[in-house]
């Protein structure tokens, strides 16, 4: 059963460039990018117990730094990427110190407020960020001299990065540090009494989540070749949070499924339904009320029940 599932997943990841048209290959790329973003958020939400409504900050900041360095200052993509990620990580470290002064709802409000500040800056500092016009005409890098401008080549690039990201985050979560993170999520007082430093564990996780958020931001700006303040908005953070919760936080598969679902609805629904945000809001309500633990745990419960049922 397990091998079948793995085979299906492998097939759905490897086949698109061979079988599907450009539109679907691009969609698949977008799904993978959203998946990395959702997985990075889930490190905080699901495994760390810290619900953030400002994760888009890391995606947006990395994207903007890369966009500015390459288009305005003529930096090569390699160096631009390094500076973007370094800047994003530094910002995550600072934001983490501020946000971790609180927990629970206070933490949520602070992350929301911080990301709104960034959004406001991106919007208003037009001479730097071009404000509401965004920064267009960007280029994609050519890793090892290989062009990734075609949908298929870009897809392979994203797939490799996504696989690596998934692997790294999966190891992180199952490592000793990951276990201590989950422990701090569930029983912070007990963990402190056992010798763990809850604040430091949370802060490091916050930074690591910001790192992968930044990576997804780079992929995002490479894909779109354009960046706009909306990518930093609360809506962007909220879509990621919806994906994580809809798919099932606290698992590795959940955020991937959730991000895919959100993206697919966004792409298809917007063809039929003009007001995409309203639909998103209704989906939020539905999922929270009806399926609070998410799709992946729900489905695995269902398959377990089916397997247990007498033939």
């Amino acid at each position, binding site marked *: 059963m397990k091998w079948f599932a793995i085979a299906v997943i492998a097939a759905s990841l490897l086949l698109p460039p061979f079988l599907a048209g450009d539109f679907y290959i691009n969609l698949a790329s977008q799904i993978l990018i959203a998946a990395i973003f959702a997985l990075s958020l889930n490190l905080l939400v699901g495994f760390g117990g810290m619900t953030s409504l400002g994760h888009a900050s890391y995606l947006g900041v990395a994207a903007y730094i890369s966009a500015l360095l390459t288009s305005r200052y003529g930096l090569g993509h390699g160096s631009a990427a390094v500076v973007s990620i370094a800047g994003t990580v530094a910002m995550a470290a600072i934001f983490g110190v501020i946000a971790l002064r609180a927990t629970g709802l206070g933490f949520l409000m602070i992350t929301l407020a911080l990301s709104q500040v960034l959004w406001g800056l991106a919007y208003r500092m037009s001479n730097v960020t071009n404000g509401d016009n965004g920064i267009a005409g960007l280029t994609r890098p050519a890793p090892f001299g290989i062009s990734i401008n075609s949908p298929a080549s870009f897809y392979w690039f994203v797939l490799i990065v996504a696989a690596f990201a998934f692997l790294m985050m999966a*190891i*992180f979560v*199952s*490592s*000793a*540090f*990951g*276990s*201590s993170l989950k*422990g701090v999520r*569930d*029983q912070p*007082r*007990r*963990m*402190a*009494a*056992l*010798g*763990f*430093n*809850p604040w430091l564990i949370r802060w490091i996780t916050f930074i*690591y989540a910001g790192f992968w958020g930044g990576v997804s931001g780079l992929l995002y700006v490479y894909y779109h070749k354009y960046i706009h303040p909306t990518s930093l908005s609360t809506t962007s953070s909220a879509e990621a949070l919806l994906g994580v919760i809809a798919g099932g936080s606290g698992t590795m598969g959940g955020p991937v499924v959730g991000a895919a679902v959100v993206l697919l609805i966004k792409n298809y629904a917007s063809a039929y339904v003009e007001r995409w945000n309203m639909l998103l809001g209704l989906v939020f309500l539905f999922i929270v009320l009806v399926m609070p633990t998410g799709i992946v745990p729900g489905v695995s419960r269902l398959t377990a029940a089916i397997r247990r049922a007498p033939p």
Partner: protein
Amino acid sequence: MTAAASNLALEVINLKKAFGGLAVTQDVSLAVRPGERRLIIGPNGAGKTTLFNQISGDLRPNSGLIRLFGFDITQLPPYRRAHAGLSRTYQIITLFATDTLEHNVALGLLGLRSSRWQMWRPMSLYSDLAAEARRALDAVGLLHLAAHPISDIAYGERRRVELAVALAQKPRVLLLDEPLAGLSNTERSTVKSLIASIPRETTVIMIEHDMDTALDLAETVTLLNYGRVIVDGGRDAVIADELTREVYLGT
């Protein structure tokens, strides 16, 4: 009771704590020698758990000093006290319900090791950690349940796991907060014999609210009431003391 200060396992000096107008710890002083078995008793609301919370660092006293083997820990956060050799169990069980017994104990072991910062190796690969966790479970008679989640096992067994987790760290001072609470008679004698078999390298300080249950485990007894030390000394002396009868007959 005068002893050379640095020879004491745990020293509490003039501890005071008040919540607004309510004084919960009033000038409490304790001197516990290494290897001692101390029982802290007192009626409900006497401030026993509050005292423990200040010793473990969950609560900050308003004034006073706490020393662990001569080392001033009054300003240290809880996790640093663990590294200094302090361990505790709780009145309310705070284990990780969805994790296995083995994982719970392994976490306890991890808390003092530098490997707790490792992010690039799955924890399941730490075979020595798992082996030591199983040994700790065996010592409390729960090895056969090692792979079960905590939510599966009985209350008395969970108390034993709490003990295993605390003992796994080989603490120098162990604080047991009502370790026998809510146990049936058979469970109670199991846990009592476990406590009795704790090696002398660990100093044990226990809270019990019911005087009779843990008396035979104690060598010295401290009686608290309204946040104050009323009587303090050898077990038999405290039992015989007038003041002890007053406090307990009065409730």
